[in-house]
């Protein structure tokens, strides 16, 4: 059952060294800025971080990488115009990279939460990203075997939670949030507001509270990093 706090620091207090951490967001939208900052303060290290990107600018995930806390990134698009911190850490051999096509990344996380042992996808067949992976031709189409991603922790941003932890999101800020919350042992969600039980229509809940462990109310989240 979801716990509630107004302290991002308290929400991330139990993240262990070596943990796998799913971080939601695509660009600015859905980026759990306060939770990432709290994780930076918290000090755990040797993390495997799963995010679409690998940080940009100097704050948030980039700062986490810059502080030497990330041993491995699993992402689809690390290289950006302002990904200099990841770029430097990667070139210096300080962080490993597992590059995954974006849709395969989303599906692997979905499989993790859904108890699927692995799946075949046509994405990446015949490309360098299929090298070393099992492939199979199914119904005339080349396919690549991909494994689920599960994690110890997810950091997700949603719009509203009710007191059972049911969540709704806002526009394209939904992105990876629902699949990440489901794929983590401990899903930590920052929301702009919390409503009473019954305050969300059961037909419109996107993430049922069963997937949510900790909710942090942050009424006015920071303007997120822009890309």
């Amino acid at each position, binding site marked *: 059952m979801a716990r509630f706090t107004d302290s991002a620091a308290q929400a991330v207090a139990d993240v262990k060294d070596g943990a796998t951490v799913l971080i939601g967001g695509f660009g*600015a*939208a859905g980026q759990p800025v306060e939770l990432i900052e709290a994780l930076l303060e918290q000090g755990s290290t040797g993390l495997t971080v799963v995010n679409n990107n690998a940080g940009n600018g100097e704050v948030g995930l980039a700062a986490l990488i810059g502080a030497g806390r990330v041993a491995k990134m699993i992402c689809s698009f690390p*290289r950006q115009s302002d990904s200099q911190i990841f770029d430097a850490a990667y070139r210096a051999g300080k962080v490993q990279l597992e590059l*995954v096509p974006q*849709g*395969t990344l989303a599906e692997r996380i979905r499989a993790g939460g859904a108890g699927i042992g692995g799946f075949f996808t046509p994405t990446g*067949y015949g490309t360098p990203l299929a090298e070393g992976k099992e492939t199979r031709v199914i119904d005339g189409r080349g396919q690549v075997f991909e494994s689920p991603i599960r994690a110890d922790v997810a950091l997700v941003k949603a719009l509203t939670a009710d007191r059972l932890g049911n969540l709704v999101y806002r*526009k394209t800020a939904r992105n990876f949030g629902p*699949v990440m919350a489901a794929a983590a042992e401990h899903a930590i969600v920052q929301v702009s507001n919390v409503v009473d039980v019954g305050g969300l229509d059961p037909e419109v809940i996107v993430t049922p509270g069963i997937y949510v462990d900790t909710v942090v109310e942050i009424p006015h989240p920071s303007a997120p990093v822009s*890309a």
Partner: protein
Amino acid sequence: MNSTDTPLAKADLAALVAGDIETGSFVNLGIGQPTLVADHLTPEQHVTLHTENGMLGMGRAAVGDEIDPDLINAGKIPVVENPGAAYFHHADSFAMMRGGHLDVCVLGAFQVSVRGDLANWSTGAPDAIPAVGGAMDLAIGARQTWVMMTLFGKDGTPKIVTDLTYPATGVTCVSRVYTPEAVFLVDPETGLSVRETHGPSIDELSERMGLELRPT
């Protein structure tokens, strides 16, 4: 065969692509040059745009007060929401793509092979940090994958090739290539053909590209 005397300007090429999209289609426009296609779609075409970060019914770029950090496209540009839009999460969005529900995806490219293999994610430079994003999902997902690109690199090297020299994004996935000089069709059975030229003749193109070319 349609033809003009000179190669098409970028806007004219985008208009040509837009005009080829059937009424009522669901379309994904890749980052870069393909985004220009949106400017040439008419309301009468009833084309619905998909953005792989979780939206159908994406509208034009947002301006001024419309800018909302929670409403962006796959290029991370703020956009507006069209009436009848729908939001969904990333796995559902790529399921929609991978499941073959989009009619057309228009992508940029470094190279396309005569069999429709696509290279658009990596130049293979040894010191480059690899990044793929949604390129591989987009390449193989839609019912038709169209490429919009220049036909020749800055050094004059043709970008339609017998075999890719850049790392593949997907194999036998491209069905059309729109370039300023010509529109090419790629048929899985019969291979490459030229639908129309703009400027050079097929023979001239054939010579510059080092490929046998035939009209469609």
